[in-house]
């Protein structure tokens, strides 16, 4: 059993897959809730959710006089990570089945990347 990161990206100035009208928003949320319920019920869901925009980000860097803080995300880019799931899956094919469901639910491209636990999670 492995774990995979399913992440989606938003382009600056465009919504992160959230539709504009309240009705559309409701159907969108219903789809996401149904998908997460299915992930939960099958023991697939580990963690996940949506991220606030890059303007809300703070970066810390080590320096001789202690960590230095800067406003903004790591990389100034047009695209930034908008949300993610960590899922349990036996192999890439199994992870891709879930990635397809996420794409269907949010109509946004998904990156599938193997996740390697570190530290205490590794034990």
């Amino acid at each position: 059993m492995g774990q995979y990161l399913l992440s989606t990206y938003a382009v600056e100035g465009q919504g992160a897959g959230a539709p504009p009208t309240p009705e559309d928003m409701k159907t969108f949320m219903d789809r996401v809730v149904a998908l997460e319920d299915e992930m939960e019920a099958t023991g697939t869901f580990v963690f996940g959710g949506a991220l606030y925009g890059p303007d809300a980000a703070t970066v810390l860097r080590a320096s001789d006089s202690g960590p230095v803080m800067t406003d903004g995300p790591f990389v100034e880019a047009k695209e930034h990570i908008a949300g993610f799931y960590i899922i349990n899956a036996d192999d890439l094919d199994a992870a891709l089945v879930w990635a397809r469901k996420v794409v269907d639910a949010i109509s946004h491209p998904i990156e599938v990347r193997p996740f390697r636990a570190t530290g205490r999670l590794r034990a």
Partner: protein
Amino acid sequence: MTAPVAATGDAIGVDRVFREAYGQAVATLIRIFGDITLAEDAVQEAFVVASDRWPRSGIPPNPAGWIVTTARNRAIDDLRRSARGRQLHEELGAVVDPSREARIERREVEGPVKDDQLRLIFTCCHPALRTEHNVALTLRLLGGLSVDEVARSFLVSEPAMAKRLVRAKYKIKAAGIPYRVPEDADLPERLRSVLSVLYLIYNTGLEGPERASLRTEAIRLARALVELMPDEPEAAGLLALMLLSESRATARTSDGSLVLLRDQDRTRWNRTMIQEGHAIVRACIRRGRPGPFQLQAAIQAVHCSADSLEATDWAQIVALYDHLFSVMPTPVVALNRAIAAAEIEGPGAALTAIDAIAAELDNYHPMHAARGTMLRRLGRGDAARAAYERAASLAVTEADQQFLAHLLDALDEGGTES
């Protein structure tokens, strides 16, 4: 170990057996050890032993089985000795699991299980890998080509190809690309991926005489696939398509220049391959589950049935192109339909059809060449020249370049007849 059958074991025989046994042995070793690099190293070591032993004592009756046994034993020895091995050994457990060992022993008697190769084809051709990695892995792991041979076939340096293979194997391992035949729901998409990789290998083999071995390899792999998946008509269709194309290989070039189907010496076509291709196409038609490769094979089958250009059943070919376009609506199919239809409807209608897709195929030299030919047949010499020149500027292979140079020369001689 069984007694050797051949006592001669000449170098060529050993080479051929190596090539054929390699893919089978690597596939089985990957199943046993779950690690591609370990499997490759072990098989490599077994081949070193074989290349020393076989020329003296002869090739064993089941060479792949012999390689698997030897490679497996070596790998287990190596694993027991090295620290990394001990760790892997514990992780795998399976290596020393007595029931598994018993199964392995049984396989050695029966010869390697064919399913291993099928699993490996699907791993190598996984759509999550980029196409150039699919091709490199397939040729290296299943085809048993050396890294250098694969590199030369794709005009890249050996270190670049080695790096490509390392990256591809890293992704398989890290991303957890499975080593198994896909589930039914995924099978059509995944099989399409396998078939297109094999067809790409074949077509790359058409790009020059130094690459001809890729065609042989592609046909060998397609044949193996048909044997492994006898219920997949598209796999059979691909094999037939390759055989029918290959039957004309020697007639396709003359003095290093491309010879069009219409000008080929049909007595030089390989009748054995045509017969086999025709038999497969007939079997596909009886099954009634047509797909793009079967339809392309059927078109080639009609061409190969004609003793002369005049005897070609063009109406049948155009009808098959229409069917093909309905399942594969690409501009290249539309172009080929137009070229075939010119034989019935004349160059004017064909030119109209080609012009309709010209923008989409602007970087595809066969489109400009075909357009040039229609213009020439319509007596529009200057426009024909421009089209041929554009085609020549886009053509890559030596044979295509020469062919287009001939066409331009013929124009200069005032040849505007059809």
